[in-house]
């Protein structure tokens, strides 16, 4: 199977061709919004971080910023910083340059002489980049070039019965074809670690599965809380999910039956052609999707029993539900209906093939429902409070 995408100078392949206006901190985010509004073909997002952070917390922000810029769906990036934030321009540029050699421009608001002057500079850079990007022709690539992120949010029992198994079948097919599939959401491995650990490639990967789940739980104990206090959510429970363990056992179906080859920390660069990997992300959907996209996922497949609208500024997000009532009620938000699995009309394998087809069509340029609605909301995980 093949798709048509954009070859990048760093060797990776994009499925979209956008210019990123990257806010280095919360203090640059209003400015990047104004810039992006004036440049058709550009994207931006609200960065709530970038300042007043201790080192490990700032690292999460830096990895998402660098990963977004390096994601092959992005042609090039205009970084906009205020000037005095912790995520200094030279640090952000160095982090991006560690990951990619794509076009990069810089605007520092305090040096440019305020918002309006910074906007003018950045708009000129971005318009030139969009013009350059528009000259690129698509080429045909094997689907082994794809890194697909998998997510579940607003889960209900149909997620574990149909939508996630269909994603798992798609993931297995992608892995067999030589691609990479990312399983995510560390709290939603709790109660199912032993199943993932049994499928680990080696002892190191096996131990890492336990390490990230234990670290996640301990983190909450550190502030006197239990991760189970907020997970499952009220919507999960209303749908019929009783415990976090039940949710987890449904969640991990997204990884199919493939061998688990690696466990990545939040937002780190994921390798192509690596098969099934796990990334340490929170259960919060926008920040989990952000980490996988920062890792290089060109497409995200996202199951939702209750009907989540979440998109991404960088990568198309394909929505799938196993709940026939949700599909009927929220068709404007959901791309794929996996309910036929529950009612014996189609097998998991058939739906996995159909879903892979939809992933390939999406990679070729077909708009997802979230893209059509212009949904770009995103979030970055936090380690602790601001200083």
């Amino acid at each position, binding site marked *: 199977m093949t798709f048509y995408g954009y070859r990048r100078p760093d060797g990776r392949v994009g499925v979209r061709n956008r210019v990123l206006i990257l806010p280095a901190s919360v203090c640059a985010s209003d400015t990047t919004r104004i810039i992006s509004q004036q440049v058709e073909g550009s994207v931006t997002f609200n960065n709530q971080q970038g300042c007043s952070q201790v080192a490990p917390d700032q690292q999460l922000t830096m990895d998402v910023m660098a990963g977004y810029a390096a994601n092959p769906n992005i042609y090039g990036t205009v970084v906009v910083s205020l000037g005095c934030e912790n995520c200094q321009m030279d640090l952000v540029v160095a982090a991006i340059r560690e990951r990619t050699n794509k076009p990069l421009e810089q605007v520092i608001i305090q040096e440019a002489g305020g918002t309006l002057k910074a906007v003018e500079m950045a708009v000129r850079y971005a318009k030139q980049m969009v013009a350059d990007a528009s000259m690129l022709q698509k080429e045909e690539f094997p689907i082994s070039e794809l890194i697909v992120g998998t997510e579940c949010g607003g889960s209900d029992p149909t997620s574990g019965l149909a939508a996630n198994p269909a994603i798992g079948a798609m993931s297995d097919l992608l892995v067999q074809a030589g691609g990479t599939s990312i399983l995510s959401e560390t709290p939603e491995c709790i*109660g199912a670690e*032993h199943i993932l650990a049994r499928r680990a490639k080696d002892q190191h990967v096996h131990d890492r599965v336990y390490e990230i789940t234990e670290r996640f739980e301990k983190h909450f104990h550190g502030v006197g809380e239990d991760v189970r206090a907020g997970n499952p959510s009220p919507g999960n429970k209303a749908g019929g999910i009783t*415990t976090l*363990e039940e949710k987890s056992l449904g969640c991990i179906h997204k990884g199919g039956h493939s061998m688990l080859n690696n466990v990545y920390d939040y937002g780190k660069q994921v390798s192509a052609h690596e098969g099934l990997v796990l990334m340490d992300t929170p259960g919060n959907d926008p920040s989990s999707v952000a980490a996988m996209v920062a890792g290089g996922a060109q497409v995200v497949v996202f199951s939702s029993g209750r009907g989540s609208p979440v998109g991404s500024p960088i990568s198309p997000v394909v929505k799938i539900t196993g709940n026939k009532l949700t599909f009927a009620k929220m068709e404007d938000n959901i791309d794929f209906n996996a309910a036929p699995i529950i009612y014996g009309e189609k097998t998991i394998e058939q739906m996995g093939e159909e879903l892979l087809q939809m992933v390939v069509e999406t990679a070729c340029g077909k708009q997802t429902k979230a893209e059509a609605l212009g949904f770009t909301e995103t979030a970055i995980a936090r380690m602790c409070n601001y200083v």
Partner: protein
Amino acid sequence: MNVNAMIIDGKDNVAIAIEPIAAGDTVTYLVQGKPVSLKAAQDITIYHKLATRPIAKGEPVVKYGEHIGVATEDIPVGAHVHVHNVVSPQEDRRSKE
């Protein structure tokens, strides 16, 4: 025969309603293609769980062939199984492999 529930693993002691079920309705699910029926003790919201075997207080609730919780009271066959009668098992994660 109206199949209105499903069971995932042979070890499970709960089934999932795949249609809305009212108290007194016949609940039918397939085990290796063969229908098994019981009577619903309560209304069961679509996609919620009901007991297929009596589950004693303190016994594990099993779905996907795995422990998803522990019963906090005796749960009779056909009863709704959810947050009112189940808590997280919180088992030692490394002992289960």
